[in-house]
């Protein structure tokens, strides 16, 4: 209040910049301190508020898409409101309405209090908005990380699958009771060949090559030949027709003397038909 006219002109300029929220942080704090002791600047600020508010309405008015209304409603009404329902409407600080055109000139103390509260509330709102923005950013980051983790887990699972398969093959091949079987192409697939290792405890490891193109609705089925009758070891995966080693579990109680492969209706059959493409008999046990 005791500042000279020149000084006050500087404060008035700051009031205008402050009203637009365009002061730097230090200047803003300095001005807010000044506001607490200067009714003139507080009043000046209040006269500028309508002009600032007007800027928000001077933009071209656009109709939002009708869907936005539903989106807003479901976002708002879909969530539970923690406190508002039980809290009574806030009793605002009552300010008498002035009838003079100078509606902004209330009791000085009340004005200062209102400005002070407004400043404080503005600060809080700004902080809340910033925190919410940071929270949003953190959520995005979290979603990205989650996606990356899922991708890595998927890669890991795939790698683990390959590893398990390799270990299965190795287990069969290196089993003390493993017996090696060379499979030869038969009529209908003379160029085909295969190599199997059989272990009664660890199963059958089989790789094949040069089989005929498999037709739709058909499967290759692998058989363990016994003295009695062929026992199915399982279907050859469709992506394993050329070189990849596949491990089949050892059926219980089977003592094979050979291995065969036939083409069968999709899903396999209890006993092989006549399209037998590979047959091999076992070498003697070591």
């Amino acid at each position: 209040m005791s500042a000279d006219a020149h000084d006050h002109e500087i404060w008035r300029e700051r009031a205008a910049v402050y009203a637009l929220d365009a002061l730097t942080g230090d200047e803003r704090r300095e001005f807010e301190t000044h506001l607490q002791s200067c009714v003139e600047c507080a009043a000046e600020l209040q006269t500028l508020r309508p002009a600032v508010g007007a800027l928000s309405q001077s933009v071209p008015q656009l109709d939002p898409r009708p869907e936005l209304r539903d989106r807003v409603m479901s976002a708002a009404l879909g969530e539970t409101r923690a406190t508002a329902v039980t809290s009574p409407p806030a009793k605002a600080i009552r300010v008498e309405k002035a009838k003079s055109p100078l509606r902004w000139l209330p009791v000085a103390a009340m004005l200062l209090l209102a400005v002070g509260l407004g400043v404080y509330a503005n600060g809080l709102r700004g902080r809340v908005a910033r925190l919410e923005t940071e929270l949003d950013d953190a959520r995005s980051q979290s979603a990205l990380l989650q996606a990356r983790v899922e991708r890595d887990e998927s890669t890991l699972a795939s790698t683990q699958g390959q590893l398990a398969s390799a270990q299965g093959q190795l287990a069969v091949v290196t089993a003390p009771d493993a017996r090696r079987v060379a499979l030869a192409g038969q009529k209908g697939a003379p160029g085909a060949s295969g190599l199997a290792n059989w272990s009664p405890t660890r199963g059958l490891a089989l790789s094949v090559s040069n089989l005929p193109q498999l037709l739709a609705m058909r499967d290759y089925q692998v058989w363990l030949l016994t003295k009695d009758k062929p026992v199915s070891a399982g279907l050859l995966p469709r992506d394993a027709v050329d070189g990849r080693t596949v491990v089949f579990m050892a059926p219980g109680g089977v003592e094979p003397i050979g291995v065969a492969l036939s083409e069968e209706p999709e899903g396999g059959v209890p006993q092989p038909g006549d399209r037998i493409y590979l047959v091999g008999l076992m070498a003697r046990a070591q």
Partner: protein
Amino acid sequence: MVEPAPERRILERMAAGDGDALRELYDLHGRAVYSLAVRILRSQPDAEDIVQEVFVQAWRQAARYDATRGTVVGWLLMQAKSRSIDRLRARKARPEQADDAQRPEPVDTGVSADVQVVRVEQAQRVKEALERLPVLQKTALELAYYEGLTHVEIAEQLEQPLGTVKTRIRQGLLKLRDALGGTGMPDVMRDGTSK
């Protein structure tokens, strides 16, 4: 002299959990909130996010609305402005998206063609007052309000001394205030919550 604002009754109903009241509030002011967000962010999806945030917040905080701080629409627009500027700053902080947000352009850019442009008399009067300002005053005001720049940043952008920018901002605001005073207060400030 001034009727109690219907908006305040809407807020009271919202505070009591009345969802229809929120619909009424949206129907009254959703367009203004959306338009301001589009002006600042120049992006329809971003502006829609802001509208959602503002009205969800209004729903949550209806009971805490303080009429001494201004009108309901003023409250909503202040939230919209603050959130839009925050988003604009966050976008500028990410270099790959910064270009389109760096420079102010004519106000109608960035809006898809299917959005109908509607002007109300009130908005037109305010806009005309702004348009009549000398270009430096107008630009300084727009950079501060719609771009969220500090007066220091405005001075750099306009290549003007700091003191000049502050003076222009004040002159512009005063002229805008005077122009509005001649035809009545803007609706934003009108519903009897003056201090």
